[in-house]
């Protein structure tokens, strides 16, 4: 059982405690990604709406050009009123989420009170910064953090960069290879005071459009029944949106897209220019 002198006591900081016990992360000394194919997780998005925030992430993980996993999850509860979504090297990212969740719980148990939402966001920023040596060796992790700030009664979003820079966003945040594509979709349609329904639909559309353009982002897999993980965080806490509900919304989205003029979207290429069958 760990006991410390008052001068060495790590306080409520679990990461420091784990490090003192020899369980801290070790950065590789050479670039891993150049030598081995590392599994990467891609597009995640978070949107603020009237009651809080919605977070969403596709389910694909890739190693180079190979789909290494079709059903990984990238959106996790951090604690009751916040969530974290990951993009980047999947292994270190999962480890970071696990450590972050534990960090918040550990703080709460040791101190007997919760960190503020901003305190949680800063914690995650420190973890991203601590990962910088590993990021330089090809193991970058860039999460987004969102939660319901119970003291201010509003949803809040935080985006990070690879150095641990923490940027609070007012309306939406994205990360991953398809993040900027998804972000453009959200930017076009975002307005103040979205309802839960609209926010979930917007997240679905954003992920669909990102998957349409980015090979590392997975679209809805209707054959296997694999859909993005979507969760809402409100004053009632973190809550996953039901898979059946998401499937239903995708059907709606596909119907709407295919009923556009001309029986569908513009064909991307035409074989006729090559003088094919007449």
């Amino acid at each position, binding site marked *: *059982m*760990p*006991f410390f002198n008052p001068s060495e006591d790590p306080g409520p900081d*679990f990461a420091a*405690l*784990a490090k003192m*016990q020899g*369980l801290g992360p070790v950065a590789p000394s050479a670039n891993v990604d150049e030598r081995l194919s590392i599994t990467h997780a891609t597009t995640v998005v978070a949107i603020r709406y009237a009651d809080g925030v919605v977070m969403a992430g596709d389910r694909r993980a890739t190693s180079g050009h190979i789909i290494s996993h079709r059903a990984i999850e990238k959106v996790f509860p951090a604690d009751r009123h916040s969530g974290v979504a990951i993009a980047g090297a999947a292994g270190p990212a999962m480890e970071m989420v*696990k*450590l972050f969740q*534990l960090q918040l*719980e*550990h703080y709460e*148990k*040791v101190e*007997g009170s919760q960190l503020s939402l901003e305190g949680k966001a800063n914690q995650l920023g420190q973890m991203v910064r601590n990962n910088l040596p590993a990021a330089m060796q090809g193991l970058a992790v860039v999460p987004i953090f969102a939660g319901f700030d119970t003291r201010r009664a509003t949803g809040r979003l935080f985006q990070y960069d690879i150095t641990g820079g923490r940027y609070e966003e007012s309306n939406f945040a994205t990360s991953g290879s398809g993040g900027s594509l998804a972000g453009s979709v959200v930017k076009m349609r975002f307005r103040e005071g979205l309802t839960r329904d609209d926010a979930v639909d917007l997240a679905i559309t954003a992920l669909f459009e990102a998957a349409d353009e980015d090979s590392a982002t997975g679209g809805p897999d209707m054959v296997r029944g694999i859909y993005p993980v979507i969760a809402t965080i409100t004053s009632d806490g973190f809550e996953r949106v039901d898979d059946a509900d998401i499937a239903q919304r995708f059907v709606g989205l596909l119907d709407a897209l295919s009923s556009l003029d001309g029986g569908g979207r513009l064909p991307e290429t035409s074989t006729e220019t090559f003088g094919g069958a007449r």
Partner: protein
Amino acid sequence: MSMPYYVAPEQVMKDRADYARKGIARGRSLVATQFADGIAIVAENPSTTLRKVSEIYDRIAFAGVGKYNEFDQLRIAGVRAADLKGFSYSREDVDARSLGNQYAQILGQVFTHEMKPMEVEILVAEVGLTSADDQFFHILYDGTVMDEDRFTVLGGDADAISNRLEETWAPELDLQAVLAVAVAALAGPDRSLDATDLEVAVLDRGAQRRAFRRIERSELPDFLPKN
């Protein structure tokens, strides 16, 4: 030349035990008991900030009586041990028995080797999936571990409170009923305790993950018998 005094080891141990017992007896007692939906822990504690009962892990709670700074140090060490174990192995691998044994080792070590024994008595309680799987490890200032069932009482007045509980306690009471029984036993025939004297927490058997729930003082009157 002065001769060093010889003190028999029996006498040393007895003196230390008396010292610890006296320290513990100065504080107020605490009851932990099974009820229909889990385990309830009721402490006599006028403070709302200095807690005697707290969460260690998903299904494990800690309670201590005696000297606050000493049992609080033990509490934090327990949280650390549990979180480290769950982090390096799995959450399922964290159990009350192992924690209880670690506490016993430390208390035993301090009792025999340090200047003064810890003036504490602690409880590690784990709620099981069925009431038969509930566990109470009651650990004394000298490292003695007692594996108890149904209910357990910590503190200087434990025997009298236990005897009162023995008469009124029944299995599968609901929360309100079990609190009434526990509070009456803590108070005894000559006193009455109300919400401002009590700290109450439960381990909820049906919880998904973190089973520990504090019943805040503001909601406590709803669960206590009306006078």
